[in-house]
């Protein structure tokens, strides 16, 4: 029983992390049709900023956390400004390849300017200590992660439903040009989308960091790959889909860990991606794919 509860919690916390990352991808995609593969490097930038703040300013964890969030938001907005604006109205594959290029540049910049080797950042370990609840051993980090994700999703929903800017962003995901025809500045909508996306990446970065305790140039690669998969699973461009896909992916991963015999441990990824491919064959546009606007004239 304990084991089962632990695994469920595992699945939830993995899923929460993936949901955060996938939401970040989905919010940008829903508005401008861009698959932002450089999202991973935003996460890595957050990680490196933790290192910079710790070694230059202070090791105070709250300063470090706030600083990392800020850097992630700024980096995300800056990337849009510099790299993605020229391809804003281009087709999806042009945007995807641009994002690959940006990701490659940033990874190698980290390598060139900081170090190819992992850098230890241990001042977030305090988030992660074991506690016993009703006789079950769990880690606080998992609780924090799940709760934070839940709060972030709620805030995002409120923002999108209640604020006038949120309404504009939802409208932009349906018909961007029409939103501009309402006098709403395209640059501002896109910038806010990237800022939200960066904030979500920053949150994810904190939890990944608290678990791993080190950052290296390819730090963001695996998380963004998972986020990408989660988005596709849920239906690209659908925000509820991203959340569903994230949690589903978390569940599949933990399920694989539980079900696969020890000797097949290295094959976990292969099975996870195999299941994902099968789901896509079953539903090519993902589980909750958004309704396609049929541009009928009447």
């Amino acid at each position: 029983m304990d084991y089962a509860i632990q695994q469920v919690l595992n699945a939830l916390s993995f899923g929460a992390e993936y949901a955060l990352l996938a939401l970040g991808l989905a919010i940008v995609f829903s508005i401008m049709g861009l698959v932002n593969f450089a999202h991973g490097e935003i996460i890595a930038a957050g990680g490196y900023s933790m290192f910079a703040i710790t070694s230059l300013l202070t090791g105070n964890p709250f300063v470090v956390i706030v600083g990392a969030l800020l850097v992630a938001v700024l980096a995300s907005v800056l990337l849009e400004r510099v790299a993605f604006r020229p391809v804003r109205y281009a087709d999806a594959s042009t945007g995807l390849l641009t994002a690959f290029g940006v990701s490659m540049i940033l990874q190698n910049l980290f390598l060139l300017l900081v170090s190819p080797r992992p850098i230890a950042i241990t001042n977030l370990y305090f988030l992660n200590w074991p506690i016993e609840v009703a006789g079950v051993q769990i880690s606080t980090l998992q609780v924090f992660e799940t709760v934070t994700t839940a709060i972030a999703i709620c805030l995002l929903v409120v923002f999108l439903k209640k604020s006038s800017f949120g309404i504009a962003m939802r409208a932009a995901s349906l018909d961007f040009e029409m939103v501009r025809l309402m006098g709403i500045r395209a640059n501002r909508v896109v910038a806010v989308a990237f800022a939200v996306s960066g904030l979500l990446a920053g949150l994810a970065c904190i939890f990944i960091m608290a678990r791993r305790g080190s950052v290296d140039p390819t730090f963001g690669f695996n998380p963004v790959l998972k986020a990408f998969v989660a988005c596709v699973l849920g239906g690209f461009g659908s925000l509820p889909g991203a959340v569903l896909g994230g949690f589903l992916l978390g569940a599949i991963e933990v399920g694989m860990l539980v079900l696969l015999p020890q000797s097949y441990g290295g094959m976990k990824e292969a099975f996870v991606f195999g299941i994902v491919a099968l789901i896509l064959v079953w539903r090519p546009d993902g589980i909750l794919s958004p309704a396609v606007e049929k541009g009928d004239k009447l």
Partner: protein
Amino acid sequence: MSLSAYISRDQRSGLVGSLLLSCLLIAVGLLVVYFGQRYQLRIVYAAYVNLLVVLGLQVFMGNANITNLSHSAFMGIGAYVAAICVTPVKIKAISLPQAPWGLNAFALDPWVSAFIAIAITALLAWLVGLIITRLSGIGATIVSLALLVIVHSIFLHRTDIFKGKQAFFGIPQVFDINSILIISVCAIFVARAFRESHWGIQLRASADDEVGARSMGVNVYRVRLIAWVLGSVFLAVAGISYAYFLGTISARPFYFTHVFLTVAMLILGGMRTVTGAVLGTLLISFGLEGVRYLETGPELLGIKLPELLGLSGIMLGVVIVVTMAFRSSGITGNTEIEQLFNRWRR
């Protein structure tokens, strides 16, 4: 009867273009054979192997306009199958003592091995292709990505067959620069012939307007599948050429780094044309060598430059971003080499 009764004007034009590109390849090859040093020979060889990969990519990705990221996996499959078949039993007894199904108990002629490798790669590609050709856009890209991850983790996990991260050694080095020259010239003709063929035209039409092509009676899935399998043959040949020249392979080169490198080559040159594939490969291959030289921190004009690890990656990324921003159809756009010459003459 004249030749023109059998082939169209575009196909004739394609023959001329392939000939021109072959001359370019042979010229570079001869230059390095007569004047180059050993390490330059290796660079050119590697560039031509990548050319095969990029041509294979062009056949599917360029004509169908679907971003494919699984190609390095198919190259790996071709390389490993050939390596397993061709490596002498004595060496396999040492390197693969635990191999199942008697894989370490036989060794075949290089040609037979190559044939088997191509056949197995094409068969696997066909099976996967049945699925992937039915998806389009982002869906197809993600499944190809999944494929890459799956194949890579199999390479890493089944150390008893593939040796994982360690080197699979002892492959007879039967290829030299001449072999790759001949192969790449053939590859250019095949890729160009496919582009101008009945299927190639249908595929390009479906890339521009899938619904429109369908309504004209084009079986989009079928032409995509043909291109996908043909592309995989190119990739298998690239993998075999790689293994037969180096003599050792490992799983690492068949993963993301190589995927991005070759995709960058194709999109810089222009994925819609065979000329673009050749141009992009040569530019990036030789350009990167220059950058790698700078990376090591050389002395230029009396100034000692610092070591700049990662510079080549940055340059590659910049090439992709700049190409996408200013000329997303690549250098050649929609123009093949002979069309360019014709324009000059006029």
